[in-house]
C-alpha cells in the first residue's frame, strides 16, 4: 500500500510550549485518519504544515512522497482542503468564488460542482457576504471537493452545518474513500470521527498521544456496572476481581467500573443472588474526555488505556 501522508519529526515551536512537537505519522492511501484533539492541541498547526502554509521548525511532511514545503505546488495538485473558517470574499458571488478558485486550480468539472451544490442545496447566485455560516461552510466543502482530489485535508469541516447536511458530508467522505481518496480529518467531535474514520490519532499539548484503529479505541472503553443483590454482597470478591475498579456499595447495590473482560467479575459473583445487573457503556466522547482529563503522561503508540476514573 502506498503511503499518502507521512510526517517525520514534524515540529512547529511557537514558544512557551505551544505548537506541534515531533509528529511521526503515516496515513496510507485510501485510509481515513481522524485527528482528534481539544482546541489548541495542534490540529490546525499540523494541517497548515501539511498545506505548506507555515514552515516547520524541525522535521518534514510529505504527501505522496512530495515534500510539503519544497514541492508545495505539486503537493496541492493532489490535495483538497477544507479550512475550518472560510476567508472573506466580500461582495463576490459564490459562483464567482468557485470560478476564481477553479481557475487557480484548473481541471475542475462543473458537473461535480453542480452535484455537490445540489446535495447541499447551495445556491451559488448569492453574494458571499449574504451567506449564513452554514452556507459558507458548504461553499468551503465545494471548493475542497470539486476537483476530486486524491487527498482531502479537512479542518473541522462540519462547523455550522445542520445534522442533515452533516450526514450528507459524511456520505461524501465515504464515497470519496470508496473512490480511493485519502482523508485527513481534524476534529474535536468524536461522533464525526466515528462516522468515517478507519484510524484515530489523538493529539494533546502539541504531541501525538496515541494512534489506534477505531476498533482498538473501543477496547479502551470502560463499562459502568450496577449490580443489585437479593442477599449478601460479595464485596471483597468484587474488589479483588481483575479489571474492577471504583467499587461503591450501598445496601444491596454495588456500583463499579469494569475495564476489559467481564470474566473475573462474573467469577466473583458466582454463588451470589444477583437480581439485576446493568452495564452502561460510555460513549467515545466520554472515553475521549477521560483521556484528556488524565494528567498522566501519555505518549506514543505504546501508551495504554487511561487509568483514571471517568
Amino acid at each position: 500500500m502506498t503511503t499518502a501522508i507521512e510526517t517525520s519529526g514534524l515540529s512547529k515551536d511557537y514558544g512557551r510550549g505551544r505548537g506541534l512537537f515531533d509528529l511521526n505519522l503515516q496515513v496510507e492511501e485510501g485510509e481515513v485518519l481522524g485527528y482528534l484533539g481539544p482546541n489548541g492541541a495542534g490540529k490546525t498547526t499540523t494541517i497548515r504544515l501539511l498545506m505548506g502554509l507555515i514552515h516547520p521548525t524541525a522535521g518534514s511532511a510529505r504527501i505522496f512522497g512530495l515534500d510539503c514545503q519544497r514541492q508545495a505546488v505539486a503537493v496541492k495538485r493532489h490535495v483538497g482542503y477544507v479550512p475550518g473558517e472560510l476567508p472573506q470574499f466580500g461582495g463576490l458571488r459564490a459562483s464567482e468564488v468557485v470560478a476564481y478558485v477553479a481557475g487557480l486550480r484548473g481541471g475542475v468539472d462543473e458537473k461535480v460542482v453542480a452535484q455537490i451544490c445540489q446535495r447541499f442545496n447551495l445556491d451559488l447566485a448569492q453574494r458571499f457576504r449574504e451567506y449564513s455560516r452554514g452556507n459558507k461552510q458548504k461553499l468551503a466543502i465545494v471548493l475542497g471537493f470539486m476537483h476530486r482530489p486524491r487527498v482531502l485535508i479537512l479542518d473541522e469541516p462540519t462547523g455550522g452545518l445542520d445534522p442533515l447536511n452533516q450526514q450528507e458530508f459524511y456520505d461524501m467522505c465515504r464515497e470519496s474513500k470508496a473512490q480511493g481518496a485519502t482523508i485527513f480529518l481534524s476534529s474535536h467531535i468524536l461522533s464525526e470521527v466515528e462516522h468515517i474514520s478507519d484510524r484515530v490519532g489523538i493529539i494533546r499539548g502539541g504531541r501525538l498521544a496515541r494512534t489506534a484503529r477505531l476498533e482498538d479505541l473501543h477496547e479502551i472503553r470502560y463499562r459502568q456496572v450496577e449490580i443489585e443483590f437479593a442477599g449478601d454482597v460479595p464485596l471483597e470478591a468484587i474488589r479483588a476481581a481483575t479489571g474492577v475498579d471504583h467499587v461503591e456499595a450501598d445496601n444491596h447495590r454495588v456500583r463499579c467500573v469494569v475495564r476489559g473482560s467481564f470474566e473475573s467479575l462474573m467469577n466473583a459473583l458466582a454463588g451470589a443472588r444477583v437480581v439485576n445487573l446493568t452495564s452502561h457503556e460510555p460513549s467515545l466522547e466520554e472515553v475521549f474526555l477521560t483521556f484528556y482529563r488524565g494528567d498522566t503522561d501519555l505518549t506514543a503508540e505504546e501508551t495504554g488505556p487511561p487509568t483514571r476514573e471517568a
Partner: protein
Amino acid sequence: MFRLTWRLQRNGLIGMSAFGIFYGILQASAYNSAAGTTAAARRAFGQQMETFGQQFSLLLPLPHGIDTVAGFIQWRVYGALPLLFGFWALMSAAGATRGDEERGFLEVWFAAGVSQSRYVGTRFLVFATSAAIAVALTSGAIDLGALGSGATLPLSALIEVSLDLFAVTLTVYALTTVVAQLATSRGGAAGLAGFVVGVMFFVNGLSRSIGSLKPVAQAISPFYYYDRSMPLSPGGRFDAAATIALAVVALLLTALATWLITIRDLGTAVITLPHRERPATNRPSANPLLRMPVMALVYEQRLGTVAWALGSAVFAAYLASAGRELVDLVQSSTGFRAYLTIVGHGNPYVALTGYFWFGIFQALLAVFAITQVARWSSDDNEGRLEMVLSAPVSRTRVVVERAMALLLRLGAVIAVSSAAFYLGAAAANIVVDPGHLTLASVLLIPFALSFAAIGAILAGRAPRAAVAVLTSLAFVSFLITQLGPLLRWPDWALKLSVFSLYGMPLMGGVDWTGLWIMSAITVGGFVVGVLLMQRRDVGR
C-alpha cells in the same frame, strides 16, 4: 465598553502620538538651521519663504510671519497637521464603524444590550480622548522643538491652536462615521470618506489661490474653518467661533451617524441599491476574467478601480479647466511668480497647470498604492491568501500577479485621468502636447509602483504593520520634498524622496536618474517581496 474600545484605539493613539512628537520636534527645531540666528538672516528667510511658500498653498495655508519661530510653526507645522490627524481620524472612524461590524463586534455588543447611541457615543468619546492626548503630546513636542530653536511659544496661543487641531480632527472623525454608513465594508468606508475628505481638503487648498472657490470651501470644508485661526502667527488671532463651530458640527454629525445606524440593518448600507434577484444556480460563474491569472484580481477590485479613475478624472478635468484662470492669477501676482521659475520655460499655461495637477496626482497615486498594499495585507489577515495557496499556486506567482494586477489598475486610473486632464485643458484653450502628456503619465507608473514595491516587502515581512509603516514612509518621503529645499539639503538627499524622483516630465523631459532609481526600487522591492513571501508563515 469604554475600556474595551479604548484597547481597540490604543495602537492608533500610540502610533499617532509617536509620529506627532517626532514630526513636531523635527519641524520646530529645524528653524534655526533653515532661517539662521540673526534678525537680518531671519527677515531674509521670511521674505524668501513667504514667496516660496505660495507654491504649497494647495497643501498648506498661505505663509505669514515666517521670520519668527512661532509664525513658522503656525504655517509649516500646524498647517500640515490637520492632514495627518485627519488621516488618522478617517482610518480610526472607518475601523470603528465598519471594521467593528466586519469583525462581528457590533453583533456581540448589540446582543449584549448595548444601544446604538451608546456604541457610537462611546467610540466617539474614546477617539476624542485619544485625539486630545495625541494633540497635547504633539503640541508639547512642538514647544520643546521651539525651545531648541531658542523661542518660547505663548502658552495661550499654543492651547488655542491645539484646540483648533483637536476640533478639526474630531470633525473628520465624525464625518467619516457618517460616510461609513453609506458603505458596507471597512475599505469601502475608508475609500469613500477619503474621497469626500480629500475633496474638502483640496477645495480649501485651491480656494487659497482661487477666490471664486472660497464660498464653496466655506460651505463644505472643515479645513476652511481650521485655517481661520492662526494664533501663533505674528498678529494672528484665534477664531473661537470657527473652532466651536467645528466641534458643534462634529457632535451633530455623530448624532446623525447614530440615527443612521439605528435605521439600517447590520451589515448593510443606509442606501441600498435595488436588489436584482438572480435565478438560483449551482454552476460556477462563466465570467472568463475570473479564470485568467491577474485579470481575476483586477476584476475583483473593479469597483475600486472605477471609483479611483472617475474621482481622479473629475478632479483632473476640473483643475485643467480652471488652469487658465489659475495661471493668469499666478502671472498677475508677484508673490506667485516663483511658480514660473520652478516650472522653467515654455508655455506657462501648460507648465503650471501640469505642475499643479501632477503634484496632486502623485500624492493621490501614493495613497492608491497604499490602499493596494492594505488589500494585500487583508488578503493575509482575512484568509484569502491561505485559500489561494491551498491551490497549486506558488508564492512567487502570488507576488507577481499582485504586481501585474496593480500595474493594470494603475494604467487604467492614470489613462482615464490623463485623458480627462487633456480634455479639461483643451476646454480652457490650453493645448497640451499629447506626447509629453503621455510621457508624464507613463512615468507615474514607476512612481506608484515604487511605493507598492516597498509595500510588497512590508506585506511579505509583517502584513499587519505594512500599511502603517508604508504610510509613514510615504509621509516622510513627502516631508523630504518639503524640508529638503528649506534646509538646503544636497541633491542626493532630495532623491531619497520618491516624490522628487518623478521630476517634471511634462515640461522638463525624463529625469533619468530618478527613473532608474524608481525602477530599481520597483524591481528590487518586488524581488525582496517574493523572497520574504517564500520564507514566512501564512495565516490568520
